């Protein structure tokens, strides 16, 4: 982030630098252009200055030449007349050709005869002529000719220039050098006080014609006078500066000094005498004109504010264009920088976001124990994050990052499948989304869930595979536990004799247990999915009207969390099979998939047993009450009334018999209960010969006086069985006793043996027949009911329990009792007992009592 900021600043600095540089370049270019313009102007100025200087020099030279010409005129003729001079000058047209020339004159040396000279000139027609200034001097000179001889020049006529120092210096120099000489600054005598200009004078010596001039002395000796010309400097300069073209001339000051010293005293010319401010000049040029050996003029050119007058258009254009370009460049740069910076900022934002996301992701994956892996297919490089190592229970240094290393971590049973699924994912057959087990080096087995995405190159080849693993062991174990539990429950439900019907939240039948279906005949395919009311109707239609199903509303919900409360249960009775009674309960559930469950218990047996028990009890009570009523009543009578001896005996006899009956009933009841309760556990089984047991009974049977013993048809061979001797005696005794009791009119009681095959079991049978009252089919069916008696009149004594006892005993021996009876004809009772196999009969004939 900081780096990025630095980068941005850098780039911004760059853009600003570019702006500065381009501005500087612009400035430089502009200045360069300006300087160029100025240089050109300067050069032009310099050239102009040179030009002007040359002009001045030329003009001076021309003057010198004119003067030399004048001197030549004097040299050529011994005497030059005023007229000749006038002609000469007029011929020259000096006033036209050579500007600034005040006039061209001749100053004559007057040697020792001043008066004569004055006189001679006065004689020429100038009466007022005199030599001025007056006074005594060693040498007199006088301007005798000066053309044009008019105006101001008239004032110079007769002036002795030699008398004045500045002029004399120049005159002497000309005399000595034989060349033209220029004077210093003077005030010309021509000046009349108006427009006074600086003046200068040029002298050219005129010697005697044939005089030797080689030496200074000879020249001084030969000197006649001087041809001279006075200049008014301003007039002289007129025109010289016209070459300083146009406007420039006006902006340039030219000062001409006599000598190199710049002083007011020496100032010969000032082009701008009105006086512009003497500020620092932007343009300054000096030129020196060497006229003769001793005369130098300093020309000083100055430009004061001429710059503004320069044409700087190009410079400005350059500047403007430069600025525009700079601005554009800066803008461009800024734009680039901004774009870059924006891009960078976006990238930075994204980077931050990605960083944050990745941080969050890793936090999430870490805390959720999600491992992330990245498989580079071609390189066979498998990268794992830290969570992966934890998931596989290995340390990073033990994992070499190859595909095979991963495979090695898998449970042996899952390796092949895992490999296949990876291959299929890489081939694009289907996505990688699977579960497998891993075995930690510690041996611990964990369940992992895995899914992955395959990255492909442009050719569709799988290049990388990125995926996640996470631990689902807990869930898996729960699932397994749940599955086991479900299987258990399913087994319990299907094995349970109780039937279950569950309803979902919508009140539709969701599950029907097999037991329910077999109880009611309502199978799952017929009632699954039907709603509660239809279920109620269906079930109710199967019930008897007295005990029908009234639906779930009539049932108390038993909340699963309150198992202690015994819920109210309803009993329903089905029409088919008859007598099937079901107890119906209701349980509600807290789970969403099952909202409540009905359960059905077949209580037919319990109900029947209950009914039988109460019937048995009331019957038993009834059977006991009847003899008790006699005993009780007779006892009361005996106590309250007096009877004769016979009556008393009768009463007591009856009481005795009734008591005996009661005892018998009680004994047989107890016998029956004991046999039932113990189910033969108190029986002592031995190998017995059934025929022998029957013989024993017959031998011990107390016959009534008028009855014949039973007619026995002995068996063909011994009848070996396994049985309890005492119990079998009791059973057979009961049967023979019944045969006699129920044939009160007499008739034969016969006993026969038989062998039958009942199923796979061979059985011995004993058949006991009477020719008694017999029984109807209805009576026969009730023979084994307790207290049931075919003769309820009381004429045939009995408890009604005998046949029940027989049945119990024989059945405990694995046998059966069969009754055939014809009402009014007689009854045959057959008991069947399993034969003992021959190898079990070895001790058959040994004493068995």
């Amino acid at each position, binding site marked *: 982030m900081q780096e990025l900021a630095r980068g941005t600043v850098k780039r911004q600095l760059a853009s600003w630098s570019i702006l500065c540089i381009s501005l500087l370049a612009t400035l430089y270019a502009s200045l360069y252009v300006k300087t160029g313009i100025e240089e050109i102007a300067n050069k032009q100025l310099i050239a102009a200055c040179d030009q002007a200087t040359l002009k001045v020099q030329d003009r001076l030279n021309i003057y010198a030449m004119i003067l030399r010409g004048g001197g030549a005129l004097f040299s050529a003729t011994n005497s030059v007349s005023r007229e000749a001079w006038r002609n000469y000058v007029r011929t020259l047209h000096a006033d036209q050709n050579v500007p600034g020339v005040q006039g061209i004159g001749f100053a004559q040396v007057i040697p020792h005869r001043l008066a004569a000279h004055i006189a001679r000139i006065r004689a020429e027609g100038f009466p007022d002529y005199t030599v001025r200034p007056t006074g005594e001097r060693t040498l007199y000179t006088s301007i005798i000719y000066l053309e044009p001889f008019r105006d101001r020049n008239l004032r110079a006529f007769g002036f002795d220039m030699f008398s004045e120092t500045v002029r004399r210096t120049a005159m002497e120099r000309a005399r000595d050098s034989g060349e033209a000489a220029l004077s210093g600054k003077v005030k010309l005598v021509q000046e009349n006080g108006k427009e006074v200009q600086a003046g200068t004078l040029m002298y050219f010596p005129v010697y005697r014609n044939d005089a030797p001039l080689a030496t200074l002395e000879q020249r001084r000796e030969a000197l006649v006078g001087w041809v001279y010309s006075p200049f008014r400097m301003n007039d002289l300069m007129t025109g010289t500066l016209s070459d300083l073209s146009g406007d420039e001339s006006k902006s340039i000051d030219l000062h001409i000094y006599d000598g190199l010293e710049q002083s007011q005293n020496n100032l010969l010319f000032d082009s701008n005498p009105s006086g512009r401010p003497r500020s620092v000049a932007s343009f300054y040029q000096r030129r020196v004109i060497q006229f003769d050996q001793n005369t130098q003029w300093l020309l000083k050119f100055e430009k004061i504010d001429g710059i503004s007058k320069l044409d700087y258009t190009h410079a400005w254009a350059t500047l403007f264009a430069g600025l525009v370009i700079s601005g554009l460049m800066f803008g461009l740069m800024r734009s680039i920088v901004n774009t870059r910076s924006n891009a960078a900022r976006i990238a930075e934002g994204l980077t931050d976001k990605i960083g944050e996301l990745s941080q969050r992701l890793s936090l999430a994956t870490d805390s959720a124990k999600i491992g992330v892996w990245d498989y580079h297919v071609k390189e066979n490089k498998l990268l794992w994050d830290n969570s992966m190592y934890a998931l596989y229970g290995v340390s990073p240094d033990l994992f070499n990052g190859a595909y095979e290393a991963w495979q090695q971590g898998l449970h042996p049973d899952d390796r092949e499948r895992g490999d296949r699924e990876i291959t299929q994912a890489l081939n694009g057959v289907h996505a990688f989304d699977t579960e497998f087990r891993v075995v930690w080096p510690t041996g611990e087995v964990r369940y992992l869930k895995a899914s992955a995405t395959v990255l492909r190159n442009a050719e569709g080849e799988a290049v990388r595979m990125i995926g996640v693993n996470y631990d689902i062991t807990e869930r898996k174990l729960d699932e397994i536990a749940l599955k086991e539990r479900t299987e258990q429950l399913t087994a319990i439900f299907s094995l349970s004799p109780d039937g279950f019907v569950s309803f979902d939240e919508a009140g539709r039948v969701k599950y029907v247990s097999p037991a329910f279906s077999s109880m009611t005949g309502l199978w799952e395919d017929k009632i699954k999915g039907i709603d509660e009311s239809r279920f109620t109707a269906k079930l109710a239609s199967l019930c008897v009207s007295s005990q029908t199903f009234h639906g779930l509303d009539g049932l108390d919900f038993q909340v699963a969390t309150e198992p202690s409360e015994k819920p109210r249960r309803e009993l329903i009775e089905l029409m088919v099979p008859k007598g099937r009674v079901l107890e119906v309960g209701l349980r509600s559930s807290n789970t969403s998939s099952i909202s409540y469950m009905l359960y059905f218990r077949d209580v037919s047996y319990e109900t029947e047993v209950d009914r039988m028990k109460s019937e048995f009890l009331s019957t038993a009570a*009834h059977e006991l009450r*009847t*003899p008790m*009523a006699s005993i009780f009543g007779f006892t009361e009578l005996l106590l309250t009334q007096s009877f004769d001896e016979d009556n008393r005996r009768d009463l007591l006899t009856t009481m005795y018999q009734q008591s005996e009956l009661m005892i018998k009933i009680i004994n047989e009841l107890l016998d029956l209960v004991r046999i039932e309760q113990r189910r033969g556990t108190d029986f002592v089984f031995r190998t017995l010969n059934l025929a022998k047991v029957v013989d024993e009974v017959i031998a011990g049977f107390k016959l009534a006086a008028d009855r014949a013993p039973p007619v026995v048809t002995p068996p063909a061979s011994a009848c070996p069985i396994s049985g309890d001797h005492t119990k079998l005696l009791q059973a057979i005794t009961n049967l023979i006793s019944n045969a006699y009791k129920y044939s009160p009119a007499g008739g034969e009681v016969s006993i026969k043996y038989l062998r039958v095959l009942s199923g796979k079991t061979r059985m011995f049978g004993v058949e006991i027949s009477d020719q008694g009252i017999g029984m109807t089919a209805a009576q026969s069916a009730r023979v084994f009911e307790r207290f049931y008696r075919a003769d*309820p009149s*009381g004429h045939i004594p009995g408890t009604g329990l005998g046949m029940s006892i027989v049945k119990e005993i024989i059945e405990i021996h694995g046998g059966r009792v069969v009754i055939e009876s014809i009402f009014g004809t007689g009854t045959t009772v057959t008991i069947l007992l399993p034969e003992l196999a021959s190898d079990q009969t070895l001790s058959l004939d040994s004493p068995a009592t």
Partner: protein
Amino acid sequence: MIKMLVVDDKLELRTLLKLAFQNRDDYVITEAEDGEEALTSIARHHPDIVLLDVMMPGPIDGLGVLDAIRSNAEYAGMKVFMLSARGQDRDRADAMAKGADAYFVKPFSIIKLVNTIDQTFNLAS
């Protein structure tokens, strides 16, 4: 003279009742062994009181006889005492609902029975 019919399939019980009234001149006792015999006897003798066993063999048991008596206007005012080995409340309520005048559960006090019959007819024993 009170005409009494004793109906019971058990000889001992009929004997008991006869003996209980053996010294009384104000009762004339007739016996019957089952329901059919009882109805025949009732039709012939129009007894004042019937001592009726409930559980008897044959097509008509005690309650059947009771129904027959109560459904016949000729027998209006005839007293019917039930004698039964069934002592449950339901049995008693059934009999009383059918119009029995008394219900005695066996074994019962013969003295008390005699007294109750006497009181019914305002006789002293």
